[in-house]
Structure formats: structure tokens, C-alpha cells
């Protein structure tokens, strides 16, 4: 059988990324141009600034991805592009570019859900991973517990009712003046702290599959305020470790519960927070106790990247799910929606 070459484009937030894949799971190139430094001074991603950077960089990133993959545009079988969820202005740069590429090259266009991309990062890393399985999607914008029934077929079991987990990490980091992005900083500082120092609340919400992080966030903010009022020293490492422990405790236990109740023996982590070391340790430990295999992508595939979009796009493509030139960005696209 002839190899299928996918060209994938991702610009939903602050990374301009282009990747080339062979047969969906083999990365030929995966170029990521991150804007983190640019947004640091604003304390978070500024959509207009991100969009301006995407349009400046997209062609150079594309060319680098082609060169690295050692192919030309004519070798491509289809184009995959993120069309949601994400920042509207940012999504529209990559989407408009990809649509015009597909049109000019006369190749099929496949719109990809960014979150499905994160889940698919696991297929790239774990070559024999196949649906069905449970996935826990955790990032700055999302916290979802999802049943992956087949390639491109998802059922949402639970989601956050308020803040996304990564968002809570960012807010706590900002409150302690640790900088942006908060997740990796908290992860690093937590390693030197005592995770049992402060007993932050865990929201199990009557034991369903939904999450809530606003209580944990408020509790941590109140703790920091109270300490400041009383002029007491804040042990930043302990706050980080205790906060992180409370968050990953809920995430891990809910995911394990879902796998057990739904009868699955695989949980795949996905999204930016899937790179959190405490989450990986905690869920792996619980997985061992329950005979559940825990999978997660390598760090580079946890951050936003186009390889994961290409992988999800490949499965859409071979299943005949392609789009026409009227495809628009859908900033609040849900997983499983088309």
C-alpha cells in the first residue's frame, strides 16, 4: 500500500506549528514556533498579539517542516488543520493558510478538533495503542474525561464545571508572583516542597465524572491572603506541592474510577497538564494498583504541536471525513462535534 503523507497546521493558541507525518503515526517533521516569551510580560496569552505572530511566521514554519521532512508540497496526500477549539483570531490564520494550500495543491482538506489532536498524540508515541480506552484531557483550557470508542468517536463522561485544571495552576502561580506559564513552574517548585503541608480541599462532586477546581483555587488564594495579612512567611514550595497534590489526586482518582466502571484497562493522558510529573506519578501508581495501563505522550507532544493534529487528521482522512472551502473556525468546538 502506498504511504499516506499528511501535512498538519496548528495555530489555536500561542504556538505556530507545522508537521509532516507518514501513515498517521510516524513523524517526519514537527516544527513548533512558540510565542511564550512574547506573552510573558502580559501574564498570559494575548489573542491579538498571538494572531499577529502567527501570520508573520507561518510560511517560514511550513518551509522548515517540509525541509526537515525532506519532501515537497506535491508529495502531500492531504492537509490537516485545527479549526477549534481555541482563540478565534489565532485559529483563523492557520485555517485560512491551510485552506488556500489545499485549494492550490488540489488536495483534500481535513479540519481537526484540537482536543482530539491532544488525545491522538498518544497514537504517535504508543504504536500499538488502539481504541477503545479512557482518556483524561488536561490543559490550560480543558479538563475532560472521555471514552474513546473508536478513531474519531468520543463520548464525554465528565468535564470541569468551572476552571480548567491548567487555568487553576496559572492563577495560583500568578498569585505567588511565579510567572507564566504557571504549570511547569509549580511542578518544578513542588519537587522541593511537602505535599502534605497544607490540606487543600478536593472536590469529588458526589462522585460523578465532573470536575471542579474553583474551590481548590479559592482555598489556595485565601490561604495566601491570610498568610500575607498575618505577615507570616509563605513556603512557596509547600504551597505548590500541596496545591498540585490536591489537583492531581482528584484527576487521577476520577480517571481510574471511570476506567474501572466502564471496563477499560487503558487510560491515556493528553494535553499540556499531561506533562505534569506529579500527575504522571500519581496516576501511574493508582494504575498499578488497579491493573490499568497508563499511557502518556512525551513532553514535546503534550504541548501544542501539529504532529498530533496530523495524526487525528489522518484517521479522519482515511475514514472519509473531509471538509470543503467553507470550513470556518469554531472557537468553542466540543470534542466529538463535527
Amino acid at each position, binding site marked *: 500500500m502506498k504511504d499516506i503523507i499528511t501535512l498538519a497546521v496548528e495555530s489555536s493558541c500561542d504556538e505556530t506549528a507545522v508537521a509532516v507525518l507518514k501513515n498517521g503515526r510516524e513523524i517526519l517533521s514537527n516544527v513548533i514556533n512558540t510565542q511564550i516569551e512574547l506573552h510573558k510580560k502580559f501574564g498570559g496569552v*494575548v489573542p491579538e498579539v498571538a494572531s499577529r505572530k502567527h*501570520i508573520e511566521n507561518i*510560511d517560514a514554519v*511550513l518551509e522548515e517542516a517540509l525541509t526537515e521532512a525532506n519532501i515537497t508540497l506535491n508529495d502531500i496526500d492531504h492537509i490537516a488543520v485545527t479549526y477549534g477549539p481555541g482563540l478565534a483570531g489565532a485559529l483563523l490564520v492557520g*485555517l*485560512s493558510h*491551510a485552506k488556500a494550500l489545499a*485549494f492550490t495543491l488540489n488536495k483534500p482538506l481535513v479540519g481537526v478538533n484540537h482536543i482530539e489532536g491532544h488525545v491522538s498524540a498518544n497514537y504517535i508515541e504508543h504504536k500499538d495503542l488502539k481504541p477503545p480506552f479512557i482518556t483524561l484531557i488536561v490543559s490550560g483550557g480543558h479538563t475532560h474525561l472521555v471514552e474513546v470508542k473508536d478513531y474519531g468517536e468520543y463520548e464525554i463522561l465528565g468535564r470541569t464545571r468551572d476552571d480548567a485544571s491548567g487555568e487553576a495552576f496559572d492563577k495560583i502561580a500568578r498569585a505567588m508572583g511565579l510567572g507564566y506559564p504557571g504549570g511547569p513552574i509549580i511542578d518544578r517548585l513542588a519537587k522541593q516542597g511537602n505535599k502534605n503541608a497544607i490540606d487543600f480541599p478536593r472536590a469529588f462532586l458526589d462522585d460523578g465524572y465532573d470536575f471542579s477546581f474553583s474551590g481548590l483555587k479559592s482555598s489556595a488564594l485565601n490561604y495566601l491572603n491570610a498568610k500575607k495579612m498575618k505577615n507570616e512567611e509563605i513556603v512557596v514550595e509547600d504551597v505548590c506541592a500541596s496545591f498540585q497534590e490536591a489537583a492531581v489526586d482528584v484527576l487521577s482518582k476520577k480517571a481510574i474510577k471511570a476506567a474501572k466502571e466502564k471496563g477499560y484497562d487503558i487510560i491515556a493522558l493528553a494535553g499540556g497538564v499531561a506533562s505534569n510529573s506529579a500527575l504522571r506519578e500519581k496516576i501511574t501508581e493508582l494504575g498499578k494498583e488497579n491493573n490499568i495501563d497508563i499511557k502518556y505522550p512525551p513532553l514535546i507532544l503534550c504541548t501544542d504541536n501539529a504532529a498530533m493534529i496530523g495524526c487525528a487528521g489522518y484517521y479522519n482522512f482515511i475514514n472519509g471525513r473531509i471538509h470543503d*472551502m467553507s470550513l470556518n473556525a469554531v472557537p468553542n468546538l466540543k470534542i466529538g462535534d463535527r
Partner: protein
Amino acid sequence: MKILGIDTSSMATSVAVLEDNKLICEYTINTKKTHSQKLMPMIENMLNISDININEIDVIAVCEGPGSFTGLRIGMATAKAIAHVNKLPIVGINSVEILAGNMNLCDKNICSILDAQRTKVYMGQYKFENNELIEIKNVDVVEIDELIEELSNSNEEWILVGEAVYKYEDKLRLVDNIHIPAPSHNVSKGSSLGSLAMNKYNKNIGVYDCYNINPIYIRKSQAEVEYEEKMKRLNDGK
């Protein structure tokens, strides 16, 4: 030589193909539907009906701004991708110049305006001299009331052109030396863009490739403005 013009700087989406001095096709849709939904299907349909393959295009012309930030980027990303695939030059044309180009050979002074939100407009002033469009005042963002004041105090006759004239029509109609053209002149047009681009391309002015052309926003993002104000306050406080 065939040139494809793409304008997405205001509400109207307009595309056209010119071959040397002839307009082959033009497609304009002035509705609220997003440029993302309109632009590519319009290019696809227009080329299809006109029996032109995208690979026959030699030069891409695109509106570089100012105008709707997101709109500009949709047009620019599209232009860049087509140019990238076929290694084509891209000619960037100012949005206010395109509108002035709609008033080809008019003997009055021309002031083009585009909505810049609230009571501001993007503005440029032009005049036709010896068949050439001459710039009187460089593109800028101004308060509409200040612009009306300025024009009404001048001793010249002015044509005010652009979608934004309808937003301020009541005020503009009161000024004797300001004239509003027919509706067909008040939308940015791919044909006007294409003609200006053909001229510039032949003179090798404003010719870019997919790597070095970028939108001209005139204005910073709100976050940058606020950040700079904050920094200024902090520095002044010292």
C-alpha cells in the same frame, strides 16, 4: 500576465482576476458572513466559472491594511499560501488606496475612510494627477469629527469614499464640500486592488513574497497599549 486580487479589509469580501489591462472576473460579497466562510468559496467559484486554474495566476495582490485585524489576516494568510505553493510574488496595497482607486480619474480630492471602531476611522487622502493616484495625506487613524472639521475648513471639494461613510452619513450630508459617491464605489474592490497592484508590480514597488509581507495594522493591540501605559506610569512615578 494574470493577477489575482484579494480584499478582506472591511465587511466586503472582494476578489478579481486581471489579465494585463483587462478585468476578467470580479466577485464581491458585502454581507456580514465572515471572510473565512466567504473568501475561499468565492475564489473557487469565480475561477471555476471563468475557466481559470489557480496555477495560471502569476501575481497575487492583497490588501495589506489598515482595516479589520482578523479580516486582514484571513486575506493575507490566503495570499501567502497560494504564493507559497506556486512561488509567486505578492503585491501589497493599502486599503485606503484601493477605495481611492474606485474613483478613478475623478477631479476632486478623495478621502477614503474605513471604520476603526468607536468614533475613529482609518483615513487616507488622494488625488488623480496625470492619470496617476497621488497621495495627499498618508494613511492614519483619526477621530471622524476632527476629519469632518478638517475637510469642511479646506477650500477643496472632497469625495468621501468607503463603507464607513454610511456610519456617519448624517453628519457628512451636512457639509457642502463633502460628497458621497454611489454605493458601488463605497466597497473595496478586487478590481481596483488588481489595477493598482499591476501598476506597482510593473514598477517593482511594494512587491514581496510569502515570507516578508505582513498586514499593516497602524494600531497596536489593546494589550500592548495598556502595557505601555502601565510602564509609563511606573516610570513617571519614580
